[in-house]
């Protein structure tokens, strides 16, 4: 983290700051076809792809733990119990007890209603806050920067979040309009520095609470994709399209290398399949998936949805940065039935339907589909 932009910035030479920003906003010398490949993450070299696939198929036991807990409804009691079990399986109680401030980042990309299942369910969020309160009386805030909607009041109203905030006496911070901190990205793939809301960088614990969804550009929308919401709309606008053209899977990998949520807890009770994250079909999966490493948690969630992580480009780029383990230790509680496979999203669907860990098949797909080199 190298500087805070704001009142403090007057001490720093303007030209220096301009060059920092120029890095973030660097326009790629790509034609439109190259940009489309970048959007999907198909702009990877064969060497990088091979390295990523090898990493993803490494089944060495890992210290990353992912908890799978059955939860069949948004009823208070069942939710509370399931979230409590998740935290118990992950053994993060001590960390929660000792922190000063927790920021929960749900997924409220648009002003959708809970029944549409495109956003984190308000009952899920309420139960999460309630369980956290059992461990700590320290400050809990909810922070979100809606990607498609400038009117935060409407987002809060329609998603049911405003009722939760009132009921739980929890403050909300609009991450689109917060103070901004520039953070250096280690080994950047597309973004050398990332502007982040100060509330994210100052929280002791960040909890990502996304929904279990497919995603038309990135295959799946889980813990890592949820973190894109922290990019300030005050800089990127709405939609946060700047990141799409910066090569979305690469941007996700860069972001996840600087924001490492202490806990990712995915609302998979009802998710979205097919043309997600907004135009898909609801899918009852009856599961809460949680973990302390966002990459490992997403890998596990992806498997639960019936997709092979090796077929999803954002995992390739995260693998190049070795962000987490591709084979986390799974702790499951009360999972009686295997979740039916989710329908893949249309754009990456062909790739995601490859059903076995076959590097050659994935490489061949590229040759055919993209005339890849």
């Amino acid at each position, binding site marked *: 983290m190298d500087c805070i*932009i*704001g*009142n403090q*910035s007057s001490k720093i030479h*303007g030209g220096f*700051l*301009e060059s920092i*920003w*120029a890095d973030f*906003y*660097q*326009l*790629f010398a790509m034609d439109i076809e190259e940009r489309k490949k970048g959007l999907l993450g198909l702009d990877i070299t064969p060497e990088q792809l091979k390295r990523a696939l090898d990493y993803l198929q490494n089944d060495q036991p890992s210290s990353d733990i992912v908890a799978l807990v059955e939860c069949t409804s948004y009823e208070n009691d069942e939710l509370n119990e399931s979230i409590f079990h998740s935290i118990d399986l992950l053994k993060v109680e001590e960390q929660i007890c000792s922190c000063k401030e927790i920021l929960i980042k749900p997924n409220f990309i648009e*002003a959708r209603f809970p029944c549409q299942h495109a956003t984190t369910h308000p009952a899920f969020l309420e139960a999460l806050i309630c369980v956290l309160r059992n461990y700590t009386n320290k400050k809990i805030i909810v922070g979100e920067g809606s990607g*498609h*909607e*400038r*009117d*935060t*009041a*409407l987002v809060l*109203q329609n998603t049911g979040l*405003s009722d939760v905030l009132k009921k739980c006496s929890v403050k909300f*911070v*609009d991450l*689109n*309009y*917060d*103070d*901004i901190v520039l953070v250096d990205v280690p080994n950047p793939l597309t973004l050398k520095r990332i502007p982040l809301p100060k509330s994210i960088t100052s929280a002791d614990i960040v909890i990502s609470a996304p929904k279990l969804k497919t995603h*038309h550009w990135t295959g799946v929308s889980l813990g890592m994709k949820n973190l894109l919401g922290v990019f300030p709309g*005050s*800089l*990127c*606008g*709405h*939609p946060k*399209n*700047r990141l*799409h*053209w*910066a090569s979305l899977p690469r941007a996700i990998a860069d972001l996840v290398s600087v924001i490492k949520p202490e806990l990712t807890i995915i609302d998979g009770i009802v998710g979205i399949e097919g*043309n997600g994250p907004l*135009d898909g079909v609801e899918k009852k999966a009856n599961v809460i998936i949680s973990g302390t490493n966002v990459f490992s948690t997403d890998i596990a969630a992806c498997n639960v949805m019936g997709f092979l992580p090796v077929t999803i480009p954002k995992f390739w780029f995260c693998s190049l940065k070795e962000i987490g383990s591709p084979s986390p230790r799974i702790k499951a509680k009360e999972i009686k039935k295997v979740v039916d496979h989710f329908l893949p999203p*249309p*754009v990456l669907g062909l790739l995601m339907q490859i059903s076995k860990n076959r590097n050659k098949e994935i490489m061949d797909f590229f040759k055919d589909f993209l005339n890849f080199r």
Partner: protein
Amino acid sequence: MIVMKKEIVQYIKEIQSFLRLCQNEDGGWPYLLKRQSFSEPTAWSIVFLSELKKKNEESEKGIKWLLKTQNTDGGWPNIRHGPSDIRTAHSVYALTDFQYPDQIHKGIRWLKFNKRLTGGWAWCYGAYNFVEPTSYAVLALVKAGALPHKNELLDFIFSYQCEDGGWNSCSPIMLDVRQKGQISVTPWPLLALKKLGVSSKDERIRKALQFLECQTKKLKEPIPYSQSLALWVSVDYKQKSTGKNVLKSLLEKKLQNIWRENILWTALLGISLQRYMEAF
């Protein structure tokens, strides 16, 4: 209406006092109380305060901040020392009421230079062009008397209209799926189209106004950002009864709650109320 008029006057006075209080020491305004200054809330706060009283200390301080923030390429960043982006349009819009021809000229030049070949403007460098940033640019360029390619812009804005009559922040069709309009986005292209000379008799505008009216009626609680803009639209398109309904709903919300939520919304509410008072 008389009771409402008194309330509006009182509301405007309170907004004025509030904006004075929450101005940062550097002269700019933040989005959220006691945070850093951004050019967007600064520009709209200046517009509101100077429409009430042309010469005032707060606006002058705000203008100084804006002038200091202008980049050497002529554009404005939203955050000081950042790269120029579409907020240049807000700064040009605010400064056009004052005598800063060089700075305005440079801002206009930046806007014209950064118009995309495929039509319209993007939010920022390296992003795709959308209807909302395009509308900001149209409003600023029309106010500054420097609008290029009127017909092309009309086509661009209408090409983004959704089937339901509204506009959204993305595209009307996404991977073959028709998308819905958004209440927070629709007012901006409507304001821009009015400035481009399209009347409420145009079928597409009529549909958009209906969409806006229908969406505002559906709201459970007031939402100041979108409703302020809807009020502004009702003034521009002379939709008195729609405006009155929006106003009734808006005045239900305690002003201090709006301040706490977002200062930009407060400034836009002030502008819309002021325009409503003048028009009706």
